[in-house]
């Protein structure tokens, strides 16, 4: 017993205790700095992730692939039934494809008639999902494109079907996409066809909440939800999904993107829109050097 006591005294010697206190203070200080100056620490975090995660990539890709194969294996048992389902769906899709082609042609003709300028920002960079957030509490993924590829904070990420999230946290060769389902995700949207503005609020469930609707009674289940670009931070006009009402009667979004399989994400290039700041001037003829001529011109 005596030796035990000696041991514990060794362990809690004053120097060790001091070092321990310093260590804990350091960690708490890091938290405080993060709380005060979040962007700087987040940039540091992005650098750390940028350094660490690509090194694991060589092992991650095969393991992820293997697990997915195993999961798919279960579905092989229902192969026949799936095949039937797929054939039926294919028939329906063919009809839809015909309709889509006709609509596309009609749309092109109408655009041509109206001489419409399409938004030039519809170009994108495609990245592969490398890792997810690693915690059940945060919903984000890391993709393998970053500042090196010209990605910027705040750009939108989509899969082929709809909006997935936005870039937040940027390293040289990695970027973090905050998904719509994350608790910190807030996206301004419009609900079509009523044109209501609303805010899409992630709450760690698969169906984000649609809140701050101007006139909630005009929003019906089944309405389409697009990003609105309010505030000028997030690009406008991207498909997010459809409205549905949860059992509690609140409006939620059925996300269009396939969250079950996020493999490739396209990051849309969106640059800040030009702002029109001044109310507009009188249009005057080219200025003369003589002052009275200028006065006359502005008066006229």
């Amino acid at each position, binding site marked *: 017993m005596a030796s035990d006591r000696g041991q514990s005294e060794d362990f809690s010697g004053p120097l060790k205790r001091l070092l321990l206190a310093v260590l804990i203070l350091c960690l708490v200080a890091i938290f405080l700095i993060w709380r005060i100056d979040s962007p700087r620490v987040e940039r540091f975090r992005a650098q750390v992730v940028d350094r660490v995660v690509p090194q694991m990539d060589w092992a991650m890709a095969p393991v992820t692939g293997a697990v997915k194969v195993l999961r798919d294996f279960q579905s092989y048992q229902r192969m026949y039934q799936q095949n039937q389902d797929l054939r039926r769906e294919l028939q329906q899709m063919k009809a839809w494809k015909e309709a889509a082609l006709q609509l596309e042609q009609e749309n092109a003709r109408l655009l041509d008639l109206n001489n419409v300028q399409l938004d030039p920002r519809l170009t994108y960079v495609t990245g592969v999902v490398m*890792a997810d957030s690693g915690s059940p509490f945060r919903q984000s993924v890391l993709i393998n494109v970053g500042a090196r590829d010209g990605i910027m904070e705040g750009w939108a990420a989509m899969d082929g079907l709809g909006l997935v999230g936005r870039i937040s946290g940027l390293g040289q060769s990695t970027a973090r996409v905050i998904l719509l389902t994350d608790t910190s995700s807030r996206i301004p949207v419009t609900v079509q066809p009523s044109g209501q503005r609303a805010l899409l609020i992630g709450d760690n469930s698969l169906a984000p909440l649609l809140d701050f609707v101007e006139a909630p009674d005009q929003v019906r289940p089944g309405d389409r939800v697009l990003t609105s670009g309010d505030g000028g931070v997030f690009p406008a006009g991207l498909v997010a999904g459809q409205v549905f009402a949860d059992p509690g009667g609140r409006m939620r979004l059925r996300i269009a993107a396939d969250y079950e399989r996020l493999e490739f994400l396209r990051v849309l290039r969106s640059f800040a829109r030009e702002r029109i700041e001044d109310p507009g001037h009188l249009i005057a003829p080219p200025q003369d050097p003589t002052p009275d001529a200028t006065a006359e011109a502005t008066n006229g």
Partner: protein
Amino acid sequence: MVETAALHLWLMRAIYVGIAGALVFLHLLPLDTRPPGWAGPDLFIALTFAWAVRRPDYVPPLLVAGLALMMDLLFHRPPGLWAAFTLIGTEALRRRAPGLRDRTFAADWAAVVGVLVAVTLGYRFVLTVFVVDQPPLGLSLMQLLSTLIAYPLVALASHALLGVRKPAPGDMATARRLP
């Protein structure tokens, strides 16, 4: 003899780092990007606590702090806070390790339950005070519970596979006499 003991100590520390790395790796795998309806155990903290009770010298504070901070950064948590609480919990258990040495596993588990509950509540409290976005309470509690349930398994695995067990009084005596 001293050298082999020291070698073994560093080997165990390396194994600890290796397990932590493997856990990070498994967590980061992008298998399912849908938000889960449940939260699995935080195996890292279970492992750290289990080793802190059994062989405190395998989990030196600096190592625990470094690994936990790294996990905070990688897992997109508020950096430093959970690491600080992990460290405080580990130290509290380390302090009580000599007293727990002769007791049953139930006493050991009870001590860990107390510390982990306190740490989780403290973490949530600090997040509330600093007005940080928090995970839903249900998920937090679920993670707490599953960690507590996973603790005996982690302890058993470290005991059986890695030989991390409470030193018998005789071991300690020889270890003390040697240096």
